[in-house]
């Protein structure tokens, strides 16, 4: 492939997993060239995006400092609504993270080769989302600086955390998820960092990527162990990712409140997580492929498949809403029935109906291929889905708490400006990390893409084609 020195164009929209005619070196150039360019020559959109993220990050920091100085009273949390925005945001963010692990681990086990182009940035998204998520409950603790009390560590009080509590299960689930995701991501990065090391000309990037690459040299023995380790990590991450959101669902399901105490909660939460996560993959991936000219590697096929997964899980979530209401009625329990009534017609009915619109109606156009192929439509739908999933957690967490068993303890909830600034600020934290990531690290796993290129060449003509492979077929990725 002829690569122009400055702006890599010659991109083509395709429904294959990678555009035809990719070469090993061409993949490197497409992915790495924008990253190795001098920072001062980064495109304007990058500075703009980072500036927005950074400004919101400052808002977040301001809120956190205020929180530490003044305490949780700055939030709208009250009794009965003790869990509000911080927990809603926590569940929302951790759900977003799940798509990354699903793409990188579960789709690897199922040998879905379309995962390869999107796994790197989706895993990065997972990590950053978990960072934002983990900070939610920690900042909600009242004395956030004592968060380490949640871990079993030798202490002079001779105390242990309460292992029977779902809240402590959460601590283990989230910290395992965060560390294992980071490890999986880093292991995947090592060969690509070595590519960056060998490609970089300046001493400083060479040192930076060289140190991170750990001296990777692509030895056959290393690859053998590496591939085994990668497969094992995928096999271990698969039950892990399913367990994490199930554990979070237990926080609710183990409680006795009507609306929380449901056996459907764990699978329904996992479906919701994948749904929200794929929406975020689309929100990040569509601008990314356009801005970096990655259309040859992140093709319409990826967008189409992401949209299909999002749509399928969205329908599962919608089924969850319906069955929750049905079970409330069918159980014959007065409190459950009132919960359902209150959800649909109560003070917060607007949130429920907005949720049905976002997660039920707005995704229906995805039945049509034309919509799944349109980047603008997908981006818009994904944004609506993200809002919808946030509303879902709002409905589950906050609204359930406003009406429990005793009318004397009923009360409404109104978020304060700090609730909002902590939430919007956490988006800034996410965006800042995201923009640093896409600027410094390859957002596509080049060594894995080269394997695909190899298979592509191999399946097209058994000859030893090195640097060209004129593919004309449309579906080489079958099987």
């Amino acid at each position, binding site marked *: 492939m002829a690569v122009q020195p400055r702006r890599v164009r010659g991109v083509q929209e395709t429904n294959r997993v990678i555009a035809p005619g990719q070469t090993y070196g061409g993949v490197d150039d497409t992915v790495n060239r924008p990253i190795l360019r001098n920072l001062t020559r980064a495109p304007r959109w990058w500075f703009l995006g980072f500036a927005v993220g950074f400004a919101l990050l400052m808002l977040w920091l301001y809120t956190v400092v205020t929180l530490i100085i003044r305490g949780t009273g700055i939030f709208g949390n009250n009794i009965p609504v003790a869990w509000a925005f911080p927990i809603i945001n926590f569940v929302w963010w951790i759900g977003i993270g799940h798509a990354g692990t699903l793409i990188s681990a579960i789709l690897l086990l199922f040998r879905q080769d379309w995962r390869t182009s999107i796994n790197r940035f989706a895993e990065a998204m997972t990590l950053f989302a978990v960072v934002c998520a983990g900070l939610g409950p920690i900042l909600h603790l009242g004395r956030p600086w004592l968060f380490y009390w949640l871990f079993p560590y030798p202490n002079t009080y001779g105390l242990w955390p309460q292992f029977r509590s779902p809240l402590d299960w959460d601590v283990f689930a989230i910290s395992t998820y965060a560390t294992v995701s980071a490890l999986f991501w880093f292991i995947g990065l090592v060969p690509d960092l070595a590519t960056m090391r060998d490609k970089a000309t300046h001493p400083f990037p060479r040192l930076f990527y060289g140190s991170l690459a750990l001296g990777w040299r692509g030895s056959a023995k290393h690859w053998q162990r590496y591939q*085994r380790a990668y497969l094992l990590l995928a096999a271990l991450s698969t039950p892990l990712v399913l367990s994490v959101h199930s554990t979070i669902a237990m926080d609710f399901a183990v409680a006795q409140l009507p609306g929380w105490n449901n056996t459907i909660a764990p699978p329904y939460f996992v479906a919701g997580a994948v749904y929200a996560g794929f929406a975020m993959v689309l929100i990040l991936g569509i601008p990314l492929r356009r801005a970096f000219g990655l259309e040859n590697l992140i093709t319409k096929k990826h967008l189409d498949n992401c949209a299909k997964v999002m749509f399928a899980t969205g329908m599962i979530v919608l089924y969850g809403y319906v069955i929750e209401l049905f079970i409330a009625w069918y159980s014959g329990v007065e409190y459950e029935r009132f919960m359902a009534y209150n959800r649909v017609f109560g003070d917060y009915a607007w949130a429920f109906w907005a949720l049905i619109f976002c997660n039920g109606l707005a995704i229906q156009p995805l039945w049509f291929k034309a919509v799944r192929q349109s980047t603008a439509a997908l981006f818009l739908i994904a944004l609506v889905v993200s809002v919808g999933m946030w509303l879902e957690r709002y409905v589950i967490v906050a609204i359930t708490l406003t009406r429990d068993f005793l009318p004397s303890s009923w009360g409404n909830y109104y978020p304060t400006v700090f609730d909002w600034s902590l939430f919007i600020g956490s988006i800034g934290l996410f965006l800042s990390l995201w923009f640093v990531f896409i600027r410094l690290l390859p957002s596509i796993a080049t060594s894995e893409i080269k394997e695909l290129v190899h298979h592509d060449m191999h399946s097209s003509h058994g000859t030893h084609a090195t640097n060209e492979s004129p593919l004309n077929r449309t579906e080489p990725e079958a099987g």
Partner: protein
Amino acid sequence: MATHTATDPATNTAPEADTTYGLVAEFDTPEAVIDAANHAREAGYKKMDAYTPFPVTGLDEALGMENTRLGWVVLLMGITGGLAAFAMQYYAQVIHYPLNIGGKPLNSWPNYIIITFECTILFAAFTAGLFMLARNGLPQPYHPIFNTPNFGAATRDHFFLCIEAADANFDMQKTRGFLEGLSPLRVSEVEV
């Protein structure tokens, strides 16, 4: 295990071993390097390695490498993690600090399942990742193979086969002739 740290010059009889790490042939397709590896194995070479930008299926077998036993180590550590987590919870809740909550049994094991599971995954996953790096001898800032001309292409689009001087059959002239016969892009002698 073909780790390169084993090429201690003192244990080698070949005189070239003092200054030469090996002879490296460079190829531009994965098929060519597999082909070359097969020929080299059949010619009786044992201490050799290939360097490729991506994992090439079948290359490890072509080089005569044994399968990795990483999976067993990971299984063992996973079981260890699970047992340790359950033991910790049992010790905390039953022995060290028993708390009677609603008369429920102290060893309420269903409540311990999630933490046991998470620790199983944690131990197994970190073993998979870190043990792989450790067995590969990484991080390793210097390795003689990096002296190979054009070795930067090994992480881009070229494929290298190295027959190490530590190999019993290694002979500078013969081995070079052998590698030249595999029609590589070039053959270079690499110093330690």
